[in-house]
């Protein structure tokens, strides 16, 4: 389908697709098997200028927006969302700085993130604060011209591999949700260490670790924006990043669909390619419909999001839910189309199905996303005076 992409956007697609095909596909199974962080692929994506698509040119980026970033993520995800997650997570870590950082902070960190020289990561989740973000325990206490951080962040994507972390901590517990703030913490800061690497069901090429802060001193100028706006920064970051997470789902769905259709055309049973059976055709049709609908939603939403719309949270949540659910359904059906072969590690759909599950969980579970959509609908319709009856 023609999404009326610009010349430059098509180039981003083409380049990312080439990297996915030539560099990622051949190694994805092994990286998954060995739970190995894809440094070589990160280097290639960096050299291809893809880490800075959404970062303004004055900070060393390519000056594009969310759609540009989504296009690259989608193509990489088509080959492997473990790798695509590592790539996309660097953006998640960069957005707080990009959206609320001082000029000084932006100039200090964004060029390295844009060039891919340094990876970044986003530190929010804690063991007691998953969906319930407001219950985070990590604290930052002002001490002269420093803040002292204490606490532990859990399941942080790119943890240990990234060098630049945007970390949420409570600066004033008495203020409740208005008492949290974001800080930039660098790998190597005193008192900052990592927990063990988690073993996961899927996206095993990505690294997930704890961030441990024990009297971790960071200079006060690492505060992003000002004290107390931590939750706002987190929410705005998610608004920007969720279409990208959506692209992971679109790419993964497309990757699974491609394999399922190709296999169905080749696999002969009862003397015919199985694609000639309606039971298979209908499965493939549903997979294709959902994938395309997901893509259309992401492309439109990504463009919309670049205009900073008032309904950003609702749309971002919709992107996350729909694409995550789609990817889970499409990959599961892809395994079904391939039958026994699909269940074996020799074919890539087995990994795709394992990988898909995370899309319904991380960056806000799909249940939380539905809550957001519900709350936003309530607010939105509360503002409308007219009746539809």
């Amino acid at each position, binding site marked *: 389908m023609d999404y009326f992409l610009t010349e430059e956007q098509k180039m981003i697609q083409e*380049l990312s697709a080439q990297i996915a095909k030539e560099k990622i596909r051949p190694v994805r199974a092994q990286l998954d098997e060995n739970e190995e962080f894809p440094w070589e692929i990160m280097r*290639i994506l960096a*050299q*291809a200028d893809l880490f800075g698509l959404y970062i303004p040119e004055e900070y060393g980026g390519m000056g594009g927006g969310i759609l540009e970033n989504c296009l690259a993520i989608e193509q990489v995800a088509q080959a492997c969302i473990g790798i695509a997650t590592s790539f996309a997570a660097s953006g998640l870590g960069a957005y707080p700085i990009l959206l609320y950082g001082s000029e000084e902070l932006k100039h200090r960190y964004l060029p390295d993130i844009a060039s891919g020289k340094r990876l970044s990561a986003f530190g929010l989740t804690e063991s007691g604060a998953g969906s319930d973000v407001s219950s985070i325990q990590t604290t930052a206490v002002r001490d002269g011209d420093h803040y002292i951080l204490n606490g532990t962040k859990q399941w942080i994507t790119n943890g240990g591999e990234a060098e630049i972390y945007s970390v949420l901590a409570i600066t004033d517990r008495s203020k409740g949700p208005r008492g949290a703030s974001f800080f930039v913490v660098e790998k190597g800061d005193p008192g900052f260490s990592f927990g063990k690497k988690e073993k996961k069901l899927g996206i095993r090429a990505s690294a997930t670790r704890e961030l441990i802060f024990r009297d971790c001193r960071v200079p006060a100028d690492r505060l992003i924006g000002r004290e107390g706006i931590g939750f706002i920064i987190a929410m705005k970051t998610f608004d920007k990043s969720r279409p990208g997470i959506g692209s992971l789902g679109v790419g993964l769905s497309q990757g699974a669909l491609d394999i399922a259709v190709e296999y169905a055309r080749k696999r002969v049973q009862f003397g015919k390619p199985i694609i000639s059976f309606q039971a298979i055709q209908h499965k493939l049709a549903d997979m294709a419909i959902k994938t395309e609908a997901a893509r259309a939603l992401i492309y439109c939403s990504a463009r919309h999001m670049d205009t900073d719309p008032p309904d950003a949270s609702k749309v971002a949540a919709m992107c996350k839910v729909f694409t995550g659910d789609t990817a889970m359904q499409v990959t599961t059906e892809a395994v079904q189309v391939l039958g026994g072969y699909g269940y074996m590690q020799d074919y890539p759909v087995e990994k795709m199905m394992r990988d898909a599950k995370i899309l319904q969980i991380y960056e806000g579970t799909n249940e939380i996303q539905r809550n957001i959509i519900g709350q936003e609908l309530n607010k939105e319709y509360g503002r409308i005076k007219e009746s539809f009856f």
Partner: protein
Amino acid sequence: MHIVVCIKQVPDAKNVRIDPDTHTLVRQGVESIVNPFDLFAVEAALKIKDASNARITVITMGPPQAEEALRDVLSRGVDDAVLLSDRAFAGSDTWATSTVLAAAIRKLGNVDLIFCGKQAIDGDTAQVGPETATMLDIPYATFVKKIESLDERHLKVTRQTDEGVEVWKVPMPALITVIKEMGEPRMPSLRHKMRAKKAEISVWGAADLGLDHEAVGLSGSYTQVVRVFSPSRRGNRVMIQGSVEEQVEELYKLLKEAKVPGL
């Protein structure tokens, strides 16, 4: 330093194959790619550019659509490109091709180093590099796997031969043909890709190179293809069935009977 890389656009091997049943050539689409060995040559030049302020010009002889190959290479970081294209060039053998490339390199002028892939995957001759160098009367080294060092006037290279490796000191200007060990070609970057899209690519024909039509193309070629045919194929394959032990026994027996060496 000015480096020239000679490349060739070739049909992707995936698109040219013999149907195992009919023994006829099957072409699926006509996708063209940059000859893989030439990408190693591009990488060799880019590595030098990474470490110095070298300028790289890529040239190719081919039909107008060979421009795509040039843009591919530009998108990987090469500076300039020239397309050598003329109806008169069609049917060139290695001699006639080398004539055109040598003329183009002379026209570019002040070239210090020329890189070529070891051979093209469609013709597999490995002749154009050495012939071009001979016509330019410059030294050359073939099958180079590594550039050990480079100064203003010389380069030291390691070449791979059938017997081992050799280290040669080669005065510049020189022509080097490279093999895979030179290093995986880098991917394009978005910035280079955008530049490549817009880049003006000069097209030089026979007249621009000061070549007579008689000297190029089929009329400038010394060799001629008189027949093209499918190679004879082996008989039908035998699939060896049974348990692993049975398969081992059967294969061993068959190979013994076939008197293959080593067993």
